[in-house]
């Protein structure tokens, strides 16, 4: 039971990160490998603001601002010149950006991991098991953010423009949609989501280091693919599933060392059964 809750709370972090991946993928059709590192930048923004101002709320606001600006900046500087070039070239640039952010963080903050305390949330007792409050907050926030995002995409003009761009970029442009603007906004939202992810990440794992984003980033990417990349509920489901599997595997001592292998095997199995992920749409290819 408590393994399940732990899995859900870890999964909700993966899900939040996966949302960022999925959004950017769905609209810009690129794998933003630097997304994990934006989370790392958010974590350091929180660390610095707490050190300066002492207020966790201010820290979260600053992190969101920093990440959003950073996201737009990266998009304009590194990805926009490559609009129309091969997605693989953009993928490599994203990796370049990832290296860049990591080394800048190491130069500024040093390589040692530093503890960050957003607040002590304690835990609530349900029957025999204690559930950390941070986990519950993360879960709830994940659900809220996901619904807000879905509403935004379905109800607002910008949201529908995003949908149109993801469906068919060329046609969207012909309909008068400013594709560049839509993509910039997508990056802004994706990066703001990254800032939320760093907040909830630090609530549960209160320590930052320059390589903080790498592994959660790749796991979240996996989660996004399990759920069907491009699909928002898919990212949530994929994240939760991955979190739970990871926790169950870790709780069985024989399996624990093979956790990563197990998670990725699950991914392969799911893709073999459903080649476009759990909620991905499978369309027939026509000539």
């Amino acid at each position, binding site marked *: 039971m408590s393994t399940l809750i732990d899995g859900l709370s870890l999964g909700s972090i993966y899900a939040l990160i996966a949302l960022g991946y999925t959004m950017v993928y769905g609209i810009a059709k690129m794998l933003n490998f630097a997304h994990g590192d934006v989370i790392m930048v958010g974590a350091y923004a929180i660390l610095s603001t707490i050190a300066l101002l002492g207020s966790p709320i201010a820290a979260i606001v600053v992190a969101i601002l920093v990440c959003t600006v950073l996201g737009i900046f990266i998009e304009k500087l590194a990805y926009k*010149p490559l609009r129309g070039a091969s997605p693989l070239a953009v993928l490599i640039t994203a990796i370049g950006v990832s290296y860049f952010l990591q080394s800048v963080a190491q130069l500024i903050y040093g390589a040692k991991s530093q503890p960050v305390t957003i607040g002590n949330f304690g835990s609530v007792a349900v029957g025999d098991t204690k559930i950390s409050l941070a986990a519950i907050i993360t879960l709830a926030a994940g659900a809220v953010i996901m619904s807000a995002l879905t509403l935004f995409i379905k109800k607002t003009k910008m949201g529908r423009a995003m949908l149109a761009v993801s469906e068919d970029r060329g046609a969207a442009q012909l309909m008068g949609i400013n594709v560049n603007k839509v993509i910039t906004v997508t990056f802004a939202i994706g990066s703001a989501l990254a800032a939320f992810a760093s907040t909830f990440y630090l609530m549960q794992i209160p320590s930052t280091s320059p390589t903080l984003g790498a592994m959660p980033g790749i796991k979240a990417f996996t989660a996004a693919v399990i759920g069907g990349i491009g699909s928002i509920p898919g990212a949530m489901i994929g994240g939760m599933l991955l979190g739970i599997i990871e926790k169950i595997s870790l709780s069985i001592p024989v399996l624990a060392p093979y956790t990563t292998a197990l998670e990725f095997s699950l991914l392969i199995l799911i893709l073999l059964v459903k*080649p476009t992920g759990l909620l991905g749409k499978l369309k027939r290819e026509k000539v």
Partner: protein
Amino acid sequence: MAKNKFKLKHHINYIGVGLFLVITSVMMFMGVLNRSTANLITQIAYSIILAVSLNLVVGFLGELSLGHAGFMCVGSYLGCFFAKYMFAFTDSKLLVLIVSMLVGGLVAAVFGFIIGLPALRLKGDYLAIVTLAFGEIVRTIFKNLDTFGGALGLSTKKYGSELFIIALIVVLIMLFVMQNLIRSKHGRAITAIRDNEIAARAMGINVTFYKLLVFVVSAFFAGIAGVIYGHYATPVLYSFFSYNYSIEILVMVVLGGMGSITGSIIAATLITYINFVLTTNLSGDLAALKFLIYAIILIAMIIFNNAPALNPVKERLGDYKNKVLNKITGLLIKKKYDPSQVVDDHAAWHRIPSKIKMDALLSLDITDKNNQNGGDKK
């Protein structure tokens, strides 16, 4: 082929690598080649093998693979493991090296076959993540096997700096196999699958066979590269073969140009050289700058190579370069460069990749209208 007139462009890779091999070997035997340069050459050699073999999958077959380091990992561990036990029976380092390379390559090829199977069903990013997953699974398993040294890594007998000679010979053999494969009817079938799988199938090309063939050949050479790596740097550590390394190989392929073997050779040499220079020169406090500089070089090179906005600039540069190169060619070969001659089928292999719709490679959405239209236009 044999009846055709000698064409420089068909043999340029052999000549380049061969010359390099001869020059460095002579230097070695004259005792004027220092160890770190010899090591650099070994690194370049296994990087070239990795890049060219990955290019077969990404550039020629058109499937994105992020698990090349996984094949390397399998080859490295099993080849070196085999070598360790072979030393009990023979003292010949050369024999052990050759046999262990074959063993590592063959085992990796088996894994290539296994990974080729999902490639029949999955496309684009979904295949990419499966290959990435494969790489991570493999290394996690090796990490936990005490037979292979566990977290401590697999220690084997170290080879001296003369290893680079064998490594370069392997590069030559690989180039021979790859170029003959690509320029044969099989190679054309493979590129046909890349350009339009359904059309290729309709033409009677055995897509299943060729996809598996490409994965097997590519994994075979990655495995061999792994064995060379393992003998160069013992202990074989599981942490080296992470997806980061797969991506580094992919960087070489993308930078050199998809579907260009010469490009892969150049890019692999360049990137290994840049890394080597940065690692050996930036020590102590300065080391943190290494990735910063590498990142900036990487982004700059990619944007320069690929940004549509820079095309006019590049054309002008290209014209200038052509003029200079034509002059040099004229001096060297005493044959006037005739652009019309380039338009033969062989040269086209080098040029097609710039034309293909790369969206098809990365896009999950198989019915993405852009792609379809792109396909239709062709």
